[in-house]
């Protein structure tokens, strides 16, 4: 028994190290083009900040929107921005999977002794995502000031939410194995997910909420974390993490199943 557990621990450690190494090398690559990296990050930061202006104007007209105040919207944006930022920094290929499958570029990853699903996702970094990531933390400090426990909880939600978001997007991309090019579906899923995480869930009717808490789990990415940050409960936290893990595991199985249908394009590529 212990041998199996040790083996699993070794595999997890090995893949965490892989993610860390990719992160380090991608960041070093970003630093080679420092001006571009800074311009992209600052641009994305300002891009997000414009939306706060929209909400500021809305809340200058109304005091509350479906039970949410301006500070609540700031927290929703903080969670959503850092979550999407984290995902695109660490797993920068998340929007490229469909293209990689179609072009037959998975061959390179299949030849390496690492989990293909993890390897393909974390081999790239989206530099502009640093702007999103930092923006979320700036909003956090504006709302809570220096609050170490809340900061820890916020970071945990950012990581868990990022992994769940990535899983949802990967599930749409995995359809490429079965139906050919599914990038339009991924684009649509991503747009739905982004938009459902950026507006208070109370403005939507029951049917939309069902979707937000099942198929497109925006509720588990932003709104449950939002509620747990206001009123923490261990049951809530464990339930959320269990739900995230189950979703991610199912998507991983779906990818594994789809991979059996993968057809190589015999494309010779160099991955540096």
């Amino acid at each position, binding site marked *: 028994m212990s041998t199996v557990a040790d083996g699993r621990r070794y595999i997890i450690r090995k893949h965490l190290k892989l993610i860390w190494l990719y992160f380090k090398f991608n960041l070093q690559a970003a630093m080679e083009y420092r001006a571009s990296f800074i311009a992209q990050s600052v641009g994305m930061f300002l891009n997000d900040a414009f939306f706060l202006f929209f909400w500021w*104007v809305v809340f200058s*007209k109304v005091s509350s929107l479906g039970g949410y105040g301006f500070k609540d919207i700031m927290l929703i944006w903080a969670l959503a921005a850092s979550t999407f930022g984290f995902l695109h920094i660490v797993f920068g290929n998340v929007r490229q999977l469909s293209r990689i499958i179609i072009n037959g570029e998975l061959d390179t990853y299949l030849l390496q002794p690492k989990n293909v699903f993890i390897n393909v996702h974390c081999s790239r970094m989206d530099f502009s995502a640093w702007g999103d990531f930092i923006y979320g933390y700036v909003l956090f400090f504006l709302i809570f000031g220096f609050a170490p426990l809340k900061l820890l909880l916020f970071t945990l939600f950012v990581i868990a939410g990022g992994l769940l978001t990535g899983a949802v997007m990967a599930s749409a991309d995995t359809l490429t194995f079965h139906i050919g090019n599914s990038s339009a579906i991924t684009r649509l899923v991503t747009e739905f997910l982004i938009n459902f995480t950026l507006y208070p869930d109370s403005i939507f009717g029951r049917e*939309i909420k069902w979707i937000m808490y099942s198929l497109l789990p925006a509720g588990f990415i932003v709104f449950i974390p939002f509620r747990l940050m206001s009123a923490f409960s261990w049951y809530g936290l464990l339930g959320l993490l269990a739900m995230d893990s189950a979703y991610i595991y199912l998507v991983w199985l779906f990818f594994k199943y789809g991979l059996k249908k993968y057809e190589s394009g015999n494309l010779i590529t160099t991955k540096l």
Partner: protein
Amino acid sequence: MKIMRKYILVAETSISSNMMYAANFLAGTFFFALIIFIFLQLWSAISLNNGSMEGYTVNRMVWYYIAAEMVVLSKSDVFRSLNEEIRGGGIVYKLNKPYSFVAYQFSDGMGQTAVRLMANLPIGILVGFLYVGGLEGFTWQSLPFVIISVLLGILLNFFMDAFVGMTAFWTEDNSAFYWITQKLSFVLGLLLPLEFLPGAIRQIAVFLPFSYIAYAPARLLTSFSKEVLMNILPVQVFYTALFAALTAWMYSKGVKKLNVNGG
């Protein structure tokens, strides 16, 4: 006319190649419907609290967003195209062809826009009628001016994107400029009518070009009057002509700096 024929051919080619990507086409229209749906939910929730605001009822807000989003979502990919051509060096294969590079980009972009507009127009009208019914206070006499304003908004958006895209001649990465100009046009007229902005910001916004992309046609549609028309349409014409001239000027300056390695 002979000169025009080649550019019409470029636009026709762009239309047929864009029609080939039916899935992307459908995804775009779904996205349009989704955005209008979210704004309907948002403003219904706000109006439940306070009734209508700044003269906008939920009905007028939804039609405002339909007109504004139609202009913005029908825009071409000219910024991305210019970036790829200039930074990737592909521009050199177009410079020795018997056409103007800027006019080629314009024809190609208008082909893309035509396809998107033809998809967004019926979807917008359908979504509007399904969500909130016909536009309150609509007058048929406003329609020709609204159409002109929509077309000017699309042209202004194109030339602003092309103007920013031309900065690729000088900068390593110009995406930040693009995001900022894009978001300025979002907050100054797309996400909110200018009437909602605080006084000082509204006064400044009226003099900036950004609100003449989406706000102008949407305002004309939802609040048509001769006064509104005279305040909006001449400024839209002015800014469209200005950015067309600036784009041509940027190209003439930038192309002299072009340095492409390899082949």
